[in-house]
């Protein structure tokens, strides 16, 4: 068996919902059936084999090749298996992911990992805005699992995040951790303005203070927090800067907020 590979015949001009091309949705289906799946391309419907060259037959290991930046919902809702994108991916990568792994060699669009509950997503490049955030109308963003971003994250990283971890190797945009309910976000690079706006609980781990901070985020002084050594140890071996942290370096400056909504969220700035 070889990986089931979807190679785009040409980059689609309109958005395509690829949410049904996951190991979970395709389990047990013959390649001929998969070829006949109707996909929506803008307002048209197209057979999968009109859009893709399809090769391989292992539905637990799915690969997308070509310019996939118009493919939406790659790996959505899957329970197990592996999805790999050779280049860039569109928005909603891993929406509602329950298990398994998704790897994007390039960058991913907006709302990556929204509603994710388990599993792991590796984005080697950048992610768009609201990674791990809630799509409009939803009360929760990411609710479990691990999102690893090698590059930068856009604005509103982890908006309304409920549980799980997001580790960003590069920088994050404005309003990181807005309206966060719980969960952990770590950013190795710099942070945009006004993180933790409306944050109820949860943890942001930063290497430097953001340029602008809301007045409702308050300085609580320097602390040595033992749990950090356990957390760092759990990240050991992950790609990027967080896999190589010194587990004994757990002194941080602790800020709490957003005081406007109870203020039980924390920003831990590493010394």
């Amino acid at each position: 068996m070889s990986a089931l590979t979807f190679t785009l015949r040409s980059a689609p001009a309109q958005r395509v919902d690829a949410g049904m091309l996951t190991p979970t949705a395709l389990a047990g289906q013959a390649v001929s059936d998969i070829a006949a799946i109707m996909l929506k391309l803008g307002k048209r419907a197209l057979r999968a084999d009109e859009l893709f060259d399809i090769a391989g037959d292992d539905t637990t290991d799915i690969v997308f090749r070509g310019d996939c930046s118009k493919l939406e919902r790659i790996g959505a809702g899957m329970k197990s298996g592996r999805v790999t994108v050779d280049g860039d991916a569109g928005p909603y990568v891993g929406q509602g992911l329950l298990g398994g792994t998704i790897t994007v060699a390039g960058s991913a669009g907006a709302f990556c990992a929204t509603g994710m509950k388990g599993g792991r997503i590796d984005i080697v490049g950048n992610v768009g805005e609201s990674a791990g955030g809630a799509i409009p109308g939803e009360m929760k963003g990411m609710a479990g699992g691990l999102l690893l971003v090698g590059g930068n994250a856009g604005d509103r990283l982890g908006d309304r995040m409920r549980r799980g971890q997001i580790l960003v190797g590069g920088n994050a945009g404005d309003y990181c951790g807005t309206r966060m309910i719980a969960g952990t976000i770590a950013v190795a690079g710099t942070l945009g303005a006004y993180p933790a706006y409306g944050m109820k609980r949860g943890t942001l781990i930063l290497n430097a203070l953001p340029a602008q901070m809301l007045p409702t985020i308050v300085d609580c002084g320097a602390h040595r927090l033992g749990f950090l050594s356990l957390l760092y140890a759990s990240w050991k071996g992950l790609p990027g800067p967080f896999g190589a942290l010194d587990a004994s370096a757990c002194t941080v400056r602790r800020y709490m907020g957003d005081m406007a909504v109870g203020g039980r969220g924390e920003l831990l700035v590493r010394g």
Partner: protein
Amino acid sequence: MSVIKLTGGRVIDPANGVDDQVRDLYIRDGRLIAAPDANDRISAEYNISGRIVMSGAIDMHSHIGGGKVNIAREMLPEDHRGDPVERTELTRSSCGHAAPGTLAAGYRYAEMGYTAAFEPALLPVNARQAHMEMGDTPMLDTGGYAMLGSDDFLLRMLAAKEDQQAINDYVAWTLHATQTVGIKVVNPGAISAFKFNQRKLDLDEQNAFYGITPREIVKVLSRAVHDLGVAKPLHVHASNLGVPGNVDTTLGTMDAAEGLPVHLTHIQFHSYGTEGERKFSSAAARIAEAINQKKNVSADVGQILFGQTVTASGDNMVQYRNAGHGSPKKSVIMDIECDAGCGVVPFKYKDQNFVNALQWAIGLEIFLMVDDPWRIFLTTDHPNGAPFTTYPHLIKLLMDRSFRNAMLDTINPDARAMSNLAGLDREYSLYEIAIMTRAGPAKLIGLADRGHLAPGAAADIVVYKEDADRERMFEKPELVFKDGELVVRDGRIVKVVRGGTHAVKPEFDIGIEKKIKPYFERFHSVRMNNFKISDDELCECGGGSKLIAHACRKRG
């Protein structure tokens, strides 16, 4: 002239006492005729022998337009994302399960054989928008019941002890200004009381500011509607909705009309006792007995069915109390320009939840224990109890005892034990279903040329293929005609049409405007003359839909 002939159908037309008789029907110029004359030629003939023929169904209580429906739509983008309706060559794209867009609502109603639906809670200040939305709802005739009872103008009149004549004039003026077909009162006076920090208001409890009780409001409004000669009895959403033990309030509200016609809406939510361990029980038997005895009372059920929906009500007092039970957890409770209020709370009815399961059983008990199908109506209070698309399922529950009992066996066992549903053997006949969904609503609202199939009636006709599975039968009629045009074939739209807007035009003394105008100038966000919707504007904002005006015979 050209005539359409429907040949050999089994006609069920309760308004004319016709029960399953084979008859040919002729349609000319959008109307039924007795037989073609010498100048006519049959332009199309449909052989429908063996098929069941009824007039178009009428939903007399369905929230399809107005502020709160739009708020529900805005608040639930996931409801729209999760239920897309694709465009076809004929129909436009739309979306939505619990709070569908206007287009999806119109198409789905027509595809189930409905040709009219009435928005039961049209706030006067929102009337313009509600009519625009209903005008944008294809396939259906529409109309609204204007909501009074918590508006400051009426409460001021009552507090000042103004005479019934003045109140009648104000009610008639409101019907004209809002282009509506009836009057509704929602939790009488309590939407106002909520603003004075009252969190419940019993039937004989005074509004803290105006000193008016719900009983007085029901009394004067049912009198006004009657005096003006409006056919549709006062539409009452009684006090204490959803509160265990509210059966006494509901029975008291029936009496508050003092023998005049009164319609109690979504009565299932008002039929609760306080027996049992959990102090929540069915009082359907008492309610049904009262309806059977009091011939001035009619009711629609507001059946709940299990699944995700959204509750949208003018009753902000109840919705404020329920907001914590919302699923997903979000809600809107708001005042609407000091005219009334609005509360929208998404809700998921669960068959294993004791309260929800018992609510389901209570609704069915009421259906089965009320003897006269002319005075009980089939509704889910769309979308409050369930979306209207569940009607075929509900019809099957009423017509098929073994199916009903099989469903009963799957619900919460404690609720099952508290219900006498298993002991109710009644099965509705097709004739009774036709009364409940066609002849009854048309008679109640006063639509003389709808809901029946006699010569002269509008040719709103539905042809069903007989099927022992009543759900399958009613969800996909074979043919639907709207005003004589074939609009649905085999459950699919074949032609998109636009219905009309029903409104009543009672006589009144225009002198009442001398009082209303200064009130608007002092307190309102619009001037009186901008508030009123003219006939021309109604047709224009309804996208060219026509006004179907009904005269009233003054009784006062």
